[in-house]
């Protein structure tokens, strides 16, 4: 695959959330607002790119038998760096995301890409793969967050946009709303895909 394709596949055709169904736990939990979604998306993208690059750098020296613990140590270290930096420089976001920042360690997208791609590809391609998957994850959070925040709180990024008479559907910012939204969005993308296939 050309280098550009390694980057763009993460955005749509192999979108980690909507196509690969990876990392759904944090996706459902922090997509209750646009701000939380973007914050989590960028934090996870940073970890994904960093771990992909490092895993790729050392891929020739890593014995296959212990590659998983090594990947996890690398990922956990970068997540800790993100956690400490957020606590120091973005305390509001850190408080809002709470326990889901440390949970980036077990986000399947990150270990998944390390194992499936970074461990077998060059540093440059691994960087693009991480960037694409990370941005795809962030975009998924943005789409879900926009729908849920608009319907469940009448706002976008904290700014009220729905007018004073709008009665927000509280369920949208609670867990059931998360499942409902992701279900509908995934169905929509599948429908688009089916249409494209039948027109081809």
């Amino acid at each position, binding site marked *: 695959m050309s280098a550009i394709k390694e980057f763009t596949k993460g955005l749509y055709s192999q979108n980690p959330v909507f196509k690969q169904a990876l990392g759904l736990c944090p996706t459902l939990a922090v997509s209750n607002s646009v701000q939380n979604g973007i914050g989590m998306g960028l934090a996870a993208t940073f970890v994904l790119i960093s771990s992909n690059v490092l895993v790729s750098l050392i891929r020739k020296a890593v014995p296959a038998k*212990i590659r998983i613990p090594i990947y996890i140590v*690398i990922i*956990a270290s970068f997540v800790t760096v993100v956690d*400490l*930096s957020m*606590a*120091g420089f973005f305390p509001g976001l850190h408080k809002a995301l709470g326990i889901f920042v440390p949970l980036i360690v077990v986000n399947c997208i990150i270990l998944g890409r390390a194992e499936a791609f970074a461990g077998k590809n060059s540093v440059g391609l691994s960087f693009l793969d991480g960037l694409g998957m990370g941005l795809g994850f962030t975009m998924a959070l943005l789409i879900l967050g926009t729908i849920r925040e608009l319907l469940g709180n009448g706002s976008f990024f904290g700014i009220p946009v729905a007018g004073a008479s709008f009665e927000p559907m509280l369920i949208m910012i609670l867990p059931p709303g998360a499942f409902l939204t992701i279900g509908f969005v995934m169905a929509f993308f599948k429908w688009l895909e089916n249409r494209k296939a039948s027109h081809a």
Partner: protein
Amino acid sequence: MKDMVKLGGLLMLITVIAATALAAVYKVTKPRILEQKRLVLERALLLALPGADKTAIVPVKKGDQILYYKGYANPDTTKFVGYAFVAHGPGYSSVIETMVGVDSTGKIIGLKVMSQTETPGLGSRVEQIKHGAKTPWFQDQFRNRKAEKLAVDKDGGEIQSITGATISSRALTKSIVAGYKLLKKEISQN
């Protein structure tokens, strides 16, 4: 066997490198994190003790533990504004921590909920600020009332609870009463 030693050794090397790098990052971010914590506390104290000078809020300690704060309007601590204490009580799904300021007669002069993770849209409305207002309406009810005799409407008191969040409303109210009683005890023991 030799294989295991080699693999184990390599793992150890990697974790030592990771630990060292993390220790360095921790050291660099520690002062900023402590500063953020201090700012949260300071903001809460200034809201609980309106009119107090931010350099004139004195913690009263027992050993290493801060029992309460005394706030003054001027740096030479001559004009007493009130006492500030942290009230905490179990809510519906979290411990609600509130910084409460009372004057010398036990009247609440200010308060700020510092942390809670109650149900979004229900119990979390203890911090909800309505359109155009500056402070949370639920907390505003406590101002100018005696801290000793607070209760929600369902318990025969005057505090209007949040619809659908009786437990959170009650928890916050009770925590302030309990915190104040503890404050009175600690002041008399000083």
